[in-house]
């Protein structure tokens, strides 16, 4: 098994032909701390593109939320249980340790702890799999669906940002869902009525920019907005989901690479990120192993305890959740982005080493 012997996840969210870690390192090298090609100004300008990329990533997840297998309900349940363990364990550990150590934060402690937990809940869908795991299709589907809970939890956590001005947690979740539905309606009305490829590209890009842009403008989660739009397109009559999926495939890799490179460029080597990194690595591994074992009981075709190891790579979604946090809480968010970036490097190595055992 080599580091490059990998295959795409069901969602196709792999960052081209090299692992996430490669793009992270490249981003760090290009960032303000090394070559300064991606200067602070350039990163500020890229913020809009990051919002659009986050919304697009959410659309992918929303489109994946469709009963594709016979065991759809148990698989969704397994995904929720598996990611739920990781989210809960990392969030609780982070909240306890940050409070116990009196770590100075500029944002509310629950926001940082829960966001770190949410980023820990996502999985990279068997980035180093060789296709030898019993029920691997189910495992990949679980890895796709285990992004849903973290996205929802991260969106909910955003409610902590603006407590003083009365933005409730309900609004933090309801607003992106409403924006996603509105943008979904626009897409539904347009995608099937274009006169050619160029015009369709304008509408697809426009709707994606609306999802990411509207959510960013409102200070809510573009990821959840994207999930809402993706779900909308999947469940309404017509071919909107097929159209958007066809077009998304054309620029999914550039968008994913953009997110990962930006995360790499934002990475800082300060005490807070390193502290968060330690929490992330230790408790995420714990959460994934326990969660994987619990989830495997719900889907008989899975190879039991191997599922946790299989889902250990955090992939792009963890980074996306952290970048989303950085948009609403820039200072501490950057520490979380850095922690997740380091953690992703570590987990990619771990997942390459801890290959699920081949069934006898």
């Amino acid at each position, binding site marked *: 098994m080599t580091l490059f012997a990998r295959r795409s996840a069901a969602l196709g969210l792999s960052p081209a032909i090299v692992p996430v870690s490669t793009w992270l390192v490249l981003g760090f090298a290009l960032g303000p701390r090394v070559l300064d090609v991606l200067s602070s100004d350039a990163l500020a300008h890229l913020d*809009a593109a990051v919002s659009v990329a986050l919304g697009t990533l959410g659309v992918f997840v929303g489109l994946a939320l469709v009963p594709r297998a016979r065991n759809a309900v148990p698989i969704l349940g397994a995904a929720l249980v598996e990611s739920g363990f990781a989210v809960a364990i990392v969030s609780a550990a982070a909240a306890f340790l940050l409070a116990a150590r009196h770590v100075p934060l500029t944002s509310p402690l629950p926001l940082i702890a829960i966001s770190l937990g949410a980023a820990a809940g996502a999985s990279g869908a068997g980035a180093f799999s060789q296709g030898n795991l019993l029920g691997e299709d189910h495992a990949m589907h679980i890895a796709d669906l285990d992004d849903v809970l973290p996205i929802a939890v991260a969106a909910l956590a955003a409610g902590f940002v603006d407590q003083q001005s009365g933005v409730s947690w309900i609004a933090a979740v309801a607003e992106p869902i409403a924006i996603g539905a509105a943008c979904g309606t626009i897409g539904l009305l347009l995608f099937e009525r274009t006169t050619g490829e160029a015009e369709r590209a304008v509408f697809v890009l426009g709707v994606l920019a609306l999802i990411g842009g509207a959510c960013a*403008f409102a200070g809510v989660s573009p990821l959840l907005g994207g999930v809402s739009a993706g779900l909308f397109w999947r469940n309404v009559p017509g071919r909107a989901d097929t159209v958007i999926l066809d077009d998304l495939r054309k620029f999914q890799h550039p968008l994913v690479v953009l997110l990962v490179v930006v995360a790499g460029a934002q990475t800082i080597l300060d005490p807070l990120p390193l502290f968060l990194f330690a929490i992330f690595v230790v408790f995420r591994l714990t959460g994934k192993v326990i969660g994987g074992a619990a989830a495997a009981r719900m889907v008989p075709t899975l190879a039991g305890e191997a599922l946790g190891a299989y889902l250990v790579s955090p992939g792009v979604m963890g980074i996306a959740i952290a970048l989303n946090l950085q948009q609403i809480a820039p200072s501490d968010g950057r520490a979380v982005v850095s922690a997740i970036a380091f953690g992703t490097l570590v987990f990619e190595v771990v997942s390459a080493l801890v290959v699920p055992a081949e069934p006898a």
Partner: protein
Amino acid sequence: MARAAALLVALVLAWLLGQTAAPEAAFRSTALAIGVALVAAALVGRIAERIGLPRVTGYLVFGLLCGPSIANIITRPMARELQIVNGLAVTLIAFVAGLEMNLRRLAPRLTVIARVGGVTILLTYLMIFVAVWTAWPWLRIAPGFTGIHRLAASALLTALVASFSPTVSIAIVAEARAAGPFTELTLAIVILADLVLILAFTLIMQFVRVTFGTAAHVSLFAGVTWEIFGSFAFGALAGGVLALYLAHIGREVAIVVLGFCVVIAGVAEHFQLEPLMAALAAGLVVENLAPSAGDVVKEGVERSALPVLVVFFAAAGASLQLDALATLGWIALGVAAARTGAIWISARLGRAAAGLSDEVTAMTWMALVSQAGVTLGLTLIVAAEFPGWGTTIETLMLALIALHQLIGPVLYRAALARAGEIGRQAGTPTALMMPQSPSGAAR
């Protein structure tokens, strides 16, 4: 009906967000502005095409109606953020223009083009200068200027007023898929006029600086030489590299062309080159040294250019300053009328000088009315360098740009239609143009 409903939902969403957002949200408005512009401007562009107007006018009108001057759905910060695509769009448009200029095909007509263009441009400058000089006391810019000061300020205003818009002209040609002798003639004139403008503006600016005692220690000719020849040299080099890439790799052409234009815009800005000329030279090199590569690029551009250009023109519409037009009212209208008259007479004399007498070339003036980004950029330089009377010139020019940007594209497209050159581009539609409806292609 479905399209109208989609437009309504997009606008209501943007309006609602604008009403409820926190003040700091203005800093996060870029993606939203781009999304609204892409969806809504593209839809309005189609409506414009249905009633016989250029799509570009639809994008501009959308920007104007939804921009800060009227409905304020695209707020002033959002309009500012939209201009992030300006550099990319200008280079992309100029690159497309270069791709359309096959020198072998143009060679037999170069003398005629040079004669018509040279006489038209020269006379336009002269006539506008005389008009500005004569009317100076009534223009409310600096009525107290006399002698050399009035001469210098009049010359500067002349350069700005006499300028054309290669960007809008090229966009109209590309959108209409126009091709033919009239298209080539008019495009060549606006591009030639752009070269003359840069040269004239640089020389006049230096004269004005000396006159008003603000001259910096700048080597004038070095600056002009660098801007013109440096831009062409850099563009040619970049075009050569792109041609090599297309010949030997040729993958992901759409993304590579976009990246190529971003690099040209960035490098040109960094080294104070003229991005429009650099991109034009790059297109010329690709088309004339590697014609087969040029065809590949045209296909790539078709896939990647439209979103950028929709946003570009919507942003231009949103930044049109109607308040400037209201401030100067009749003065702006008077200057616009004088300019149009000067262009009309000059173009007729230019045609006569080249021995042309056909009906089609009599419409050359209609291609020269537009004004846009280049003029605006130079105007901002004047306003920054000469606060006071330079700022009044800025207000006047903003009013003129608003007028000419709305009228110019309509006139040019009408001229192309009457010349029978719309929809005559060979091969696949390139760049700005969406696939046209049968009725649109025939117009």
